[in-house]
């Protein structure tokens, strides 16, 4: 009860701060905190698969879900013009430390998770694998069609994002004028 209350409180506060921040970079960092708290809630609700996914999604987005050339994404995140030196400054010690902290947290999670899975009694392990098997079986039997449709959607979104984010070629622009 205490753990779920704490996780819920952190999620709510972080979500409110996402909107309250003026700098979108801080908003994204707070959104990661919110996702972390939500992952804790998902684990407490017996949904470990769902708990893993938001973090991965967010980390993927941090690495750049949309492949763009130049520093347009960063400038867009700040909402105003910025020089190259400013974009380098963004990757200074503070984000590097935060990234190192995330990497350390990942290692600790893996070590603690490995220890916990080894210490889990066999009947609980069996129950957990039975639940995972039930989810996997539902995904590939009852929900096979939505699963495939979602795959196509992801593919289309990926292609669309690449097309939208690519820079205009000056030669193409000249051809259009002619």
């Amino acid at each position: 009860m205490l753990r779920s209350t704490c996780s819920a409180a952190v999620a709510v506060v972080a979500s409110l701060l996402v909107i309250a921040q003026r700098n979108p970079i801080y908003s994204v960092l707070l959104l990661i905190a919110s996702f972390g708290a939500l992952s804790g809630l998902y684990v407490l609700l017996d949904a470990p698969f769902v708990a893993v996914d938001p973090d991965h999604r967010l980390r993927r987005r941090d690495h750049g879900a949309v492949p763009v050339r130049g520093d347009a994404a960063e400038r867009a995140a700040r909402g105003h013009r910025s020089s190259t030196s400013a974009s380098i400054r963004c990757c200074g010690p503070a984000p590097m430390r935060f990234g190192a902290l995330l990497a350390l947290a990942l290692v600790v999670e893996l070590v603690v998770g490995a220890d916990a899975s080894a210490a889990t009694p066999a009947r609980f392990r069996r129950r957990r694998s039975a639940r995972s098997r039930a989810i996997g079986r539902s995904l590939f039997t009852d929900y096979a069609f939505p699963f495939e449709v979602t795959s196509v959607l992801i593919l289309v979104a990926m292609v669309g994002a690449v097309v939208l984010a690519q820079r205009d070629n000056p030669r193409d622009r000249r051809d259009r004028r002619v």
Partner: protein
Amino acid sequence: MFVRRNLITILLSIEIMLNAVNLTFVAFGRALGSADGQIIVFFVMTVAAAEAAVGLAIVISLFRHRESLNPDSFAALKW
């Protein structure tokens, strides 16, 4: 979402709303003793990832044209 005048913050707000929906699905699935809630959450997350990728690409494209992220700057399609 409507208070902040920044397209990226609006995208992040949409993510928060989708998270709230996901949490509701998981909580109801747990209460009803069914795994269907978790499966629906998978689909919601997939759609959210696609939406975020395309949304961010559109935001970048808009920023390249207008050098602004204020939604009020883009009124060309306004009714």
